[in-house]
């Protein structure tokens, strides 16, 4: 099973690599291949389409100005499930793509215990055992996995409608769907902030696909060591002395 997924991912990465490319300059490291980036932005596109079309249905008295963007209330209602389905499909591919680096480790449990000092800015660098993704990223990732399953199940029930699925099931699904959306909405602010203003130098990882070595040793020391063979703290000190 796992190997079949790996074979599929490898094939997909090769296929996307033959079309696109990632330029990695001196002093940089490859962060995300073309396949990952395409998936990320397809997920992002359909997430926001589903989010904004969902807003108009969730609180129309506050967000009804979103609905004309999609061509009116009925088109919003018609398109929202399709946006959601596309989101789930592309995110599902990303899950397969990221199954390995997103696996929870002992380092992540440590990270969660020290979260206060890391997020509070006391620690300038991530803990030395932080790998390709840190525990915060993994938490958000698995939250979206669970949320997407909730979306899919409750969404299909509401899509089928009360005559087919039963009115009580629809009524319950509606609440779970909303809760799932609200958690993801809170999460997207954090995600967008940390990838732009919160951590300068991060955004290019998902656009060009490459990050600076300094970025890597600062935020993902264990991953830096894995790809370069050098220790993150030492590399940082060397750079400081050079500067």
């Amino acid at each position: 099973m796992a190997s079949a997924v790996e074979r599929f991912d490898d094939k997909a990465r090769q296929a996307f690599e033959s079309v696109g490319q990632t330029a990695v300059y001196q002093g940089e490291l490859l962060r995300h291949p073309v396949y990952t980036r395409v998936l990320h932005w397809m997920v992002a596109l359909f997430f926001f389409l589903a989010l904004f079309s969902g807003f108009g249905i969730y609180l129309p008295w506050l967000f009804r100005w979103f609905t004309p963007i999609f061509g009116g209330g009925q088109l919003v209602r018609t398109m929202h499930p399709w946006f959601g389905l596309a989101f789930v499909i592309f995110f599902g591919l990303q899950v397969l793509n990221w199954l390995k680096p997103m696996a929870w480790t002992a380092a992540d449990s440590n990270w969660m215990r020290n979260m206060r000092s890391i997020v509070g800015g006391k620690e300038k660098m991530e803990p030395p055992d932080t790998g390709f993704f840190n525990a915060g990223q993994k938490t958000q990732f698995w939250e979206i996995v669970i949320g997407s399953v909730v979306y899919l199940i409750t969404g299909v029930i509401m899509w089928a409608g009360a005559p087919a699925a039963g009115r009580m099931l629809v009524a319950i699904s509606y609440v779970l769907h909303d809760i799932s959306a609200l958690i993801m909405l809170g999460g997207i602010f954090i995600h967008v902030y940390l990838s732009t203003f919160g951590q300068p130098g991060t955004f290019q990882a998902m656009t060009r696909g490459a990050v600076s070595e300094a970025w890597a040793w600062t935020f993902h020391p264990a991953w830096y060591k894995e790809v370069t063979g050098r220790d993150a703290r030492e590399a940082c000190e060397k750079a400081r002395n050079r500067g």
Partner: protein
Amino acid sequence: MADRKTLQTEMISGHPGPVPGQGMQRDLEVCKLVDTTICIGCKACEVACAEWNDLPFSLTTFDNTYQTMPETRWNFWNLIKFNEHRKEDGTIQWLMRKDQCMHCADPGCLAACPADGAIVKYANGIVDFNQENCIGCEFCISGCPFNIPRFNPSTKRVYKCTLCSDRVGAGLEPACIKACPTGCLKFGTKDDMKFIAEERVNQLRDKFGMENAGVYDPQSVGGTHVIYVLHDATDPERYGGLPKNPQIPWSYTIWKWLFKPVLGTFALFGLAGVFLHYVTVGPRRVQPEPPKKEGGNGQRG
């Protein structure tokens, strides 16, 4: 009747703030009384409804009963439900019940509706759909305990009985009432109809030996503006799915009016949180940071 303003809006789905025109002048609630013990199943009300509301007819399925079609449709709001009931003594009883929107005092469809102004409840008790505001989400169908709202896939809007709000607003009775030949259908104020219904029930009990006869005016939805006189009010289900204890799902009451705005605000805390993080803690920079400027008073470089 002409000087009374019965068509004032009382509730509007998904609408913020006070309801325009509320509390100006209130009139008595209207009510339709359906006496199932008198109905002969002539279907005149069905025809009158389709006629007055200009509903296009469509093909139906005949299932060897006296029922026009299995269920009401988006273009067929008024259906005489026909059921055969075998009584304890082995004899057969024909039950005819006029099925249509019940115009609940506490309408589940309105509670479920997310579209601003798609469902309104007038002060006279009529619950009406404004199709121009309907987004076709079909939540009202799941909110209705009587299985009444019907989705039209071609217009992507939901339709149901209006209690002829256009006629009632002009001081006329609904079309079905006008067509009924037996006096089974009556229309008037809620108080009057309840009085007549109770009188009829007493008559059925005393003169016809129907000790279980009763009025169907379910209080679990705050009472309805269509009430029935039933031969046996202890088992309304036998009249073709009339729920004994109609309920509105809690998710449309508690969730919608309390948790939805509150939790929606919580989600915005994410935005407030990252902004506060940016202004208090500041961004996390790639290490080593460039050296600080001389005399910069502790500013980051």
